[in-house]
C-alpha cells in the first residue's frame, strides 16, 4: 500500500521558495525510510518501504547515488564480529533500491587496519553493485604507510593526499581528505594546499551549480571533545558560500546526524560495521555494543536524489535491519 503525503510551503522566511522548516521536518522522518523531494518549491514526501515505488516518475530525481561509510573491514570485536556480513547486507540494500544509483560514494574507514586483504575484501564486494565507487580515506585507511596504499588503490587522478572533483548531470562533486597530518590534541584537518585547490576548483562554476562535498570527518563541529570536527573547514566552506545548494556528506561518527545552515545541508552517515555512542553519552567514542538482534538497525546506507532545477538534494537514510 503506498502512501503519498503532500506539504505545501508553510514557511518561506528567506523568500527563496524553500520551506526549510518543512524540509527539516521531513528529514526527521528519514530514519523511518522517507524520501523527501523538493519539486517546484513544494516539498513532497514518500514512504520508502518495500511496497511503495518512490522510484516512480513523481519522485524520480535526475541523479541518484548512494553513500556508504565506515565499513571497517577487519574489525572483529564484540560490537560486530562479522563486518563483512553487514557490509554485504548494505550492498544487498543498494542492489534492491527501486531507483538504482548511478554510482557510490564511500566516505572512508574502508579498512580497519589498512591491511591489503581488508581493502581487497571491500573492493571485491563492491564489484557486485556493478557501479563505480568514489572513495575518500578515513584515518583507519592511512595506518603505517601515510596513505600510500590508499593512493595506489583509489587515488588515481587525485591531488595531494587524495582530493579531487568530478561532475555528474550538472552536479559538482568534491572529495576532500581531512585525515592526514593530524596534530596532537587536534581535530580533522584539510590543510592550506587543499583549501586553496578547492577555491580554484569551484571558482568558475555558476552559483546555481549544486555542490556535493564528501569527506570522512565531519566538516562541522559535532563534538570537538571527541575529535568530531575539522579545524579548518570554515575556510573551505567560505569558498562555497556563493552556491545555492551545498550538500556535505561525512562519516566517521557512525551515526546519522544532520544540520542545515543557510544553503548548506550537513549529513553524516551510519556505519555498515558498528555504531558509536551519541556525543557525550559514553566515556569515549569507541564501538558501542548493542543487543545482537538490534545491531542492523544501527547500521545503514544513505540514498541521495537530485532533481534538476531544484535547490536541495534529498538525502534518505535506510537501516540495514
Amino acid at each position: 500500500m503506498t502512501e503519498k503525503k503532500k506539504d505545501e510551503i508553510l514557511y518561506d522566511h528567506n523568500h527563496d521558495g524553500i520551506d526549510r522548516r518543512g524540509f527539516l521536518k521531513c528529514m526527521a522522518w528519514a530514519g523511518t525510510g522517507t524520501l523527501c523531494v523538493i519539486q517546484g518549491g513544494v516539498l513532497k514526501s514518500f514512504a520508502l518501504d518495500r511496497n511503495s515505488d518512490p522510484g516512480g516518475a513523481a519522485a524520480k530525481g535526475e541523479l541518484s547515488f548512494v553513500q556508504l561509510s565506515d565499513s571497517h573491514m577487519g574489525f572483529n570485536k564484540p560490537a560486530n564480529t562479522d563486518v563483512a556480513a553487514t557490509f554485504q547486507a548494505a550492498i544487498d540494500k543498494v542492489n534492491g533500491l527501486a531507483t538504482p544509483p548511478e554510482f557510490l560514494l564511500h566516505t572512508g574507514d574502508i579498512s580497519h587496519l589498512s591491511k591489503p586483504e581488508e581493502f581487497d575484501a571491500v573492493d571485491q564486494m563492491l564489484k557486485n553493485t556493478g557501479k563505480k565507487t568514489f572513495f575518500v580515506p578515513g584515518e583507519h585507511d592511512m595506518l603505517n604507510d601515510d596513505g600510500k596504499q590508499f593512493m595506489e588503490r583509489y587515488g588515481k587522478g587525485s591531488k595531494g593526499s587524495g582530493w579531487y572533483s568530478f561532475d555528474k548531470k550538472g552536479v559538482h562533486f568534491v572529495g576532500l581528505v581531512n585525515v592526514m597530518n593530524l596534530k596532537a590534541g587536534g581535530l580533522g584537518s584539510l590543510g592550506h594546499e587543499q583549501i586553496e585547490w578547492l577555491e580554484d576548483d569551484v571558482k568558475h562554476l555558476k552559483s546555481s551549480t549544486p555542490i556535493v562535498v564528501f569527506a570522512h570527518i565531519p566538516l562541522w563541529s559535532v563534538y570537538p571533545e571527541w575529535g568530531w570536527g575539522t579545524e579548518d573547514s570554515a575556510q573551505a566552506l567560505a569558498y562555497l558560500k556563493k552556491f545555492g545548494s551545498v550538500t556535505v556528506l561525512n562519516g566517521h561518527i557512525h551515526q546519522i546526524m544532520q544540520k542545515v545552515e543557510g544553503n548548506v545541508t550537513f549529513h553524516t552517515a551510519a556505519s555498515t560495521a558498528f555504531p558509536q555512542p551519541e556525543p557525550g553519552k559514553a566515556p569515549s567514542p569507541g564501538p558501542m555494543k548493542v543487543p545482537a538482534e538490534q545491531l542492523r538497525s544501527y547500521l545503514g546506507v544513505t540514498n541521495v536524489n537530485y532533481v534538476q532545477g531544484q535547490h536541495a538534494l534529498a538525502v534518505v537514510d535506510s537501516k540495514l535491519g
Partner: protein
Amino acid sequence: MKIRVSIARLAVPVLTAAILLFGAAKSSMVVKAQQAPAASMEVKIDNFSFGPAAITVPVGTTVTWINRDDIPHTVVSDDKVFKSKVLDTDEKFSYTFSKPGTYPYFCSVHPKMTGKVVVQ
C-alpha cells in the same frame, strides 16, 4: 740526578697503579650498574586514553605501551622522536629513553589522545 731518576722511575709504576686502580674501580662500578635491572614502565591504552597520561622516569627506562582498547591506536611523539606501528588490541610498543627531556606524544589515529613522558 739520582733523585730525579728515582722519582721518574716511581712515577711510572705509580701512574700505572693509579690507572689500574681507577680502571678497576671503574670496572667494578660498571659491573654494579649492569647488575641492577634497567628501569621499565608500562602505559596502558584503554577507553581512548593513555594511562597514566603523564609519567616521569629515569634516563635509560624502557616504556612499553600496551593497547587494551577494542580499537587500534598508535603512539607518536610530537617531535618525531618515536613512532609506533598501528597497535591492535593487546599489541605493544616499546621505546627506551636514553636522553633526559620532555616527550609529549599522541595517537595519530585519534589525535585528542595525548600523553607525556618526562625523563630525568
